[in-house]
């Protein structure tokens, strides 16, 4: 039995944000996640937008935590070295009917406490963003809207929690929870990193935080008859090459509909252009596949408020599942009749933005219940990760002189050096898979999608982790890149 004060189920952005806040206390905390890396669920496949906060209905947790999270983000990004930029966002009115809605949205934003909101005329909007649709009637402009690296946000929160004492047990899938000895017992399966071999493992803790994303309803419903339903709401995206990255400068939404914020067009913090998402409700919580219909919907001219999208520059497409709850808001709080079982559920948009504020809110609830002492050794900053191409030339030069690995370019498309890849592998909770390296460095995220750098990144992983090439995976056991050596032809006969 592994004894902890707090168990967090789910190492996504919410779980990791809560873990970081809890690491400010003297608590034995563990985060359990079934995947092989931090943030392998919803946190890895979303828009990477820091929403200003005008969209959510006033008085909801969504509205409150969005605005708070958005205000926390610049400092957090600086402290943890997360690529972040306040590029501003626009919601574009494309018809006369949109105008009153735009006004409503403006007023909602003011009520929610969003700063510096402005309504732009067609001319103002077009002068700022010349590629807006010809139908543009006006736009709501929020200068505090931003873009962030969702991968680094999640992994940096986790890493910071980890160096302050929080354990992360990956490849650990929670199968059962029951009340035991004034706390909770968790039964789980631990998967072998390379073979997926299943081992049973149990945990006990005084307090459980259910941050299990699309599976949060499963754990909630184990405890209570007051059922919660989380519907996986699929969003499909196309990612365009950096050559298209300046098609717009700001994040461009069109007026929202009942199914969400519509197809947005935004530069990403890595300099690409992102177009999406769709919104399709699924039954399948593992349905992270793209569909022809979805990609067609993203590609349809007029789907967004931006014209002349250079869709031939698409380098990849992907799908993510938003954990859409049936209660109209984030579900954050204790389950009635189950003291110290706290849901952090239905964290759909604007969940990424809200995550730092969710962490603070949940930590406060834990403090009220467990009365822990402060952790006097808490360090709220991380040694910044080196992003070579963001450094001035002189600094790059000095760095290579100090450590030549930073001069060895591995990923041609995104100019990622061997030094950066080594860093991501060697850091706490470091990368162990190709996707892990990709999300942390951008290597094989570029236009060739790993065509050139896959073998090179694999060699580095193999060397650093001391595992043979054919054991290297894309995203954990079962996703091996290679099937063996050449000339192994036993299956031929």
């Amino acid at each position, binding site marked *: 039995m592994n004894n902890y004060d707090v168990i967090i189920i789910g190492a996504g952005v919410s779980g990791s944000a809560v873990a970081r806040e809890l690491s400010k206390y003297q608590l034995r905390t563990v985060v359990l996640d079934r995947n092989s890396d931090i943030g392998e669920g919803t946190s890895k496949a979303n828009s990477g937008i820091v929403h200003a906060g005008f969209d959510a209905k006033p008085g909801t947790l969504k509205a409150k935590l969005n605005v708070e999270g958005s205000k926390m983000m610049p400092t957090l990004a600086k402290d943890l070295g997360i690529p972040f930029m306040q590029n501003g966002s626009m919601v574009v009115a494309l018809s006369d009917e949109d105008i009153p809605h735009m006004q409503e949205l403006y007023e909602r934003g003011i009520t929610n406490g969003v700063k510096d909101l402005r309504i732009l005329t067609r001319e103002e909007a077009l002068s700022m963003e010349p590629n807006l649709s010809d139908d543009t009637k006006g736009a709501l402009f929020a200068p505090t809207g931003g873009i962030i690296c969702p991968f680094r946000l999640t992994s940096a929160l986790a890493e910071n929690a980890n160096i302050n004492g929080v354990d992360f047990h990956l490849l650990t899938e929670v199968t059962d929870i029951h009340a035991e000895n004034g706390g909770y017992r968790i039964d789980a399966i631990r998967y072998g990193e390379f073979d997926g071999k299943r081992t049973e493992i149990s945990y006990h803790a005084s307090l459980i935080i259910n941050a299990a994303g699309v599976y949060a309803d499963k754990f909630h419903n184990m405890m209570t008859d007051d059922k919660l339903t989380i519907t996986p709401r699929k969003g499909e995206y*196309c*990612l365009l090459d950096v*050559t298209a990255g300046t098609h717009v400068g700001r994040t461009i939404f069109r007026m929202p509909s009942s199914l969400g914020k519509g197809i947005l067009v935004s530069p990403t913090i890595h300099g690409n252009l992102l177009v999406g998402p769709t919104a399709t409700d699924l039954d399948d919580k593992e349905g*992270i*596949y*793209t*569909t*022809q219909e*979805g*990609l067609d919907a993203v590609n349809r001219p007029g789907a967004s408020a931006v014209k002349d999208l250079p869709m*031939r520059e*698409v*380098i*990849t*497409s*992907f799908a993510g599942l938003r954990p859409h709850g049936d209660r109209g808001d984030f579900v954050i709080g204790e389950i009635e009749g189950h003291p110290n079982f706290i849901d952090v559920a239905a964290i759909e948009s604007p969940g990424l933005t809200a995550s730092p504020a969710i962490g603070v809110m949940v930590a406060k609830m834990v403090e009220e219940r467990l009365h822990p002492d402060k952790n006097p050794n808490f360090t709220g900053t991380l040694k910044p990760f080196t992003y070579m191409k963001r450094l001035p*030339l002189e600094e*790059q*030069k000095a760095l*290579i*002189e100090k450590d*030549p690995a*930073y*001069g*060895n*370019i591995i990923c*041609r*498309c995104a*100019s990622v*050096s*061997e030094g950066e890849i080594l860093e991501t592998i060697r850091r706490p909770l470091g990368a162990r898979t190709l996707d892990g390296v990709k999300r942390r460095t951008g290597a094989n995220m570029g*236009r*060739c*999608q*790993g*065509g*050139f750098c*896959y*073998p090179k990144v694999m060699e580095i992983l193999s060397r650093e982790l001391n595992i043979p*090439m*054919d054991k290297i*995976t*894309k*995203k*954990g*056991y*079962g*996703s*091996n*890149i*290679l*099937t*063996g*050596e*050449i*000339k*192994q*032809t036993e*299956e*031929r006969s």
Partner: protein
Amino acid sequence: MNERIYDAIIVGGGPAGLAAALSLKDNNITDILILERDKELGGILNQCIHNGFGLHTFNEELTGPEYAARYIKMTEEAGIPYQLNTMVMDIQPVEENGKVFKAVTAMSATYGMQMLKAKAVLLAMGCREKPRGALNIPGYRPAGIYSAGTAQKFVNIDGLMPGKEVVILGSGDIGLIMARRMTLEGAKVKLVAEIMPYSGGLKRNIVQCLDDFHIPLLLSHTVIRILGEKRVEGVVIAKVDDNLKPIPGTEEEIKCDTLLLSVGLIPENELSRNMGIEMSAATRGAVVDDYLQTSCPGVFACGNVLHVHDLVDNVSKEAVTAGKNAADYIHSFGDQDTTLTNAVDPDTPLMKKFAARNATKNGVNPNDIITNADGSMTYTLPCINCPAGCIVQVTLKDGVVTDVSGNTCDRGETYARNEVTAPVRIVTSSVKVSGSDKPVVSVKTKDAIPKGKIDACIDAIRDLTIPAPVSIGDVIIPNVADTGIELIATSPASAL
């Protein structure tokens, strides 16, 4: 820091870069530097271990590594300096003392960050393959989806297998070559699907890479879905209509663990684009004048970075021209005026020729057999000797060839005679090496062997490991599979 001004810097040490460097040298330019991002010279040729290179340049049929080795040797002998593992990050024209120099920023572990300058720059960065994203195939994003060239690197350079049951999308030459290569290494290649009604690859490759191994080529078919979440478990293919849209009801699920993509090549022009030189939408390379000079004076382009070539021999030829023109530019550098732009026209006959080549469509292999009135049989076959792919008619009566027509060279006649009586093939593969930093060396049969002996030849090298050092031309097996033909090394491996 290296701040001296070179006469010429060549970006890329593949076939284009090496031929350009040698051409500069032949034209009395000696102050040259080649910058190569890989750990050896030769570019992509090093992984193209199949034969078919060099018929025009050397008048003999070589494998990729052999072709590269000849140019590397000439480069070494000419004493042309080069830097390996060095990535050019940026090129910009700079005006200094009334002259336009080219500032080249390069990065490497060995040489650090270098800001170099040159009078002329030759762009020879080659091309890359289109990835899955460019196709927008729906489905999961599992392991097991690779461009054919990535698979080629794994198999031919690293001696590693990317999969066991393979579907190939796109019938580009690398895909066809890899269909054969994976088959020879024990994988099952189930089919090649091509969305167009014709193949994008050379006829010779359809014959000797697909037909020889009974691998079906499905024209007007594409992959519409990828199955499997962690590793590819299958693909769904469908027939497409005239608008290339999948036809409902024609879907078929094919079980496989690997999808290789061979859907086209794109000149790799990020550096060119960043320096602001004018690009052609038709070729995706730079727009050049008749001297292969780009819109930036003193910047020349050649090889696959300019437009995708079918044949490396033509790359070498183009690079010789670019090198000569660059030499002329450098010789008259003192007399140049300081214009920052060179007027280029995307509609010159030369540019149109590049674009047309790029759009070349290779017809379906017409292996027709007609029975004539006199009982003789006339076979229509594409000659596989070189990329020209001449269609040859050969008539056979009572097992004797009575007529050959349509060939444009003697090799074509020999091929056609053999093909209908006793077909032969040159076999290319690799052999494991011990005591070297290279896991494998590539090999070939020194001459063609009977087609029926291919399997025996592959069996003979399956469990073979040879000690380093290995030099090109070393005899690995004197009489492979009792054919009387030598199996020889086509790439070197030095001892540790």
